[in-house]
């Protein structure tokens, strides 16, 4: 075991060195943009109700699944643009692209919508690649990918009609949605360019606001590069009443009738200004920029080796 670990750590050393440079790059990028770096707790009395995200319990508390609620409490108190690089924990998520403990960069821009945040993402990824001396053309899995802005965008409706032959906005089918997204829609994205999938069906809005003028879809986007789902973007929902309703719905669907709502968060939401926000998986960005096939190649001690 000892020798195998040593060999593994030696093999991924160059990637871990790059990882450190990428983190520097992210921090420099946001500081230059005038963002405040914040720190919110990882040990929480409650996590945000999410239908398919399971937290680790620590006594009667939980490890954070996302810094979203606390960053929004800061935003509600008048803190402006902010970012955070933090650890998130999600029980049961383990695979080539998943480790139950992972690193997230989350940022919020006051007064912005999700389109603006997508532009931030384009610039951030290009900056990180540039700081590594890579330029806008990178290689991943033997394929050249052109990161030049603007990245192609498509709506969920268009992408599903084109690749899966049905419209998830007019005929919602949650189960089929996830399978077809993975089996048909994602594989049909051009392999040599990033892809931004916009306007998720309202049922998958999570904490995004519905699109003004078209409440069948939410202003939520996902960013994909080379088959890696990199980030989840919202025009943030600022209606505390609607948010509470969505939370209650999720708790009902999870069959957790007795679960308390995150009251402090919901109270603060009354003062949340219009803003856009995003969660971007740092490990996956590092994978992309290190041409690493597995998350285990960019994390020193993955779950099973910790």
């Amino acid at each position, binding site marked *: 075991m000892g020798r195998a670990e040593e060999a593994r750590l030696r093999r991924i050393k160059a990637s871990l060195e790059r990882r450190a440079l990428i983190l520097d790059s992210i921090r420099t990028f946001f500081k230059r943009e005038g963002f405040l770096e914040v720190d919110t707790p990882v040990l929480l009395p409650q996590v945000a109700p999410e239908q398919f995200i399971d937290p680790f319990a620590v006594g009667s508390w939980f490890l954070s699944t996302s810094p979203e609620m606390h960053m929004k409490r800061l935003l509600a108190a008048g803190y402006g643009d902010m970012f955070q690089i933090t650890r998130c924990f999600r029980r*049961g*998520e383990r695979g080539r692209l998943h480790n139950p403990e992972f690193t997230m960069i989350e940022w919020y821009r006051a007064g912005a919508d999700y389109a603006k945040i997508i532009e931030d993402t384009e610039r951030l990824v290009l900056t990180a690649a540039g700081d590594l001396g890579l330029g806008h053309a990178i290689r991943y899995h033997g394929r050249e990918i052109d990161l030049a802005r603007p990245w192609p965008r498509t709506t969920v409706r268009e992408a599903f009609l084109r690749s899966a032959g049905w419209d998830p906005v007019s005929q919602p089918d949650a189960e089929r949605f996830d*399978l077809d997204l*993975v089996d048909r829609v994602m594989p049909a994205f051009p392999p040599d360019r990033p892809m931004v999938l916009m306007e998720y069906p309202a049922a*998958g809005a999570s904490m995004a606001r519905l699109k003004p003028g078209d409440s069948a879809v939410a202003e939520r986007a996902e960013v994909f590069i080379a088959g890696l789902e990199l980030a989840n973007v919202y025009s943030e929902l600022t209606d505390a009443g609607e948010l509470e309703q969505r939370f209650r719905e999720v708790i009902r669907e999870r069959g957790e009738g007795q679960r308390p709502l995150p009251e402090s968060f919901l109270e603060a939401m009354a003062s949340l200004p219009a803003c856009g926000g995003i969660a971007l998986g740092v490990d996956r960005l590092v994978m992309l920029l290190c041409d690493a096939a597995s998350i285990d190649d960019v994390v020193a001690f993955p779950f099973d080796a910790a």
Partner: protein
Amino acid sequence: MAIEISEVSRNTKLLIDGVPYAVEDVNFVKPGKGRAIYRVKMRSMFDGTGKEITYHSGDRVDEVRITAHDMQYLYEEGSHFVFMDTESYEQHHVDKKVLGGKAQFLKDGMVVSAVMMGPRVIGIDLPKFVELKVVESGVSTRTDTVTAQMKAVKLETGATVNVPTFVKEGDTLKIDTRTGTYVERVTRK
């Protein structure tokens, strides 16, 4: 025993429609905010056929405990062989079909490796090589051609094997149970 699909990993054994499968690979996919999808590659422990099944988070599957035990062959009883676990001394009646053609090399007192699914013996592995005594040399068989170099002999367990012509009744032979063929004559002490 029912377990969550998230607990399944390589080498987990699953019971599906009464057939035990060995999991060879679990591919975990989870689109953002979506259900976890588990693509489980597995192979039947009965006939080796492979298949892939897609599961979702929350699905439950039956895990089956497959264990190996050393067992000693005691005796034959109708359509069964009776073995005794050398550790627990428990006796197990094993259908002759489980052994198939290997039964012809089964000798009283032989210690074999029994593969168990829960309390049931689903496979018997004989030692790779066994030493058996020739009880009848120069058996004529309809199928085997007696050549200048080889002849058929009958062993103490009833099996017939082809051996070189120098083998005599009373000799002890080393037999490869995987192929059912003669390896060498064992020098008597």
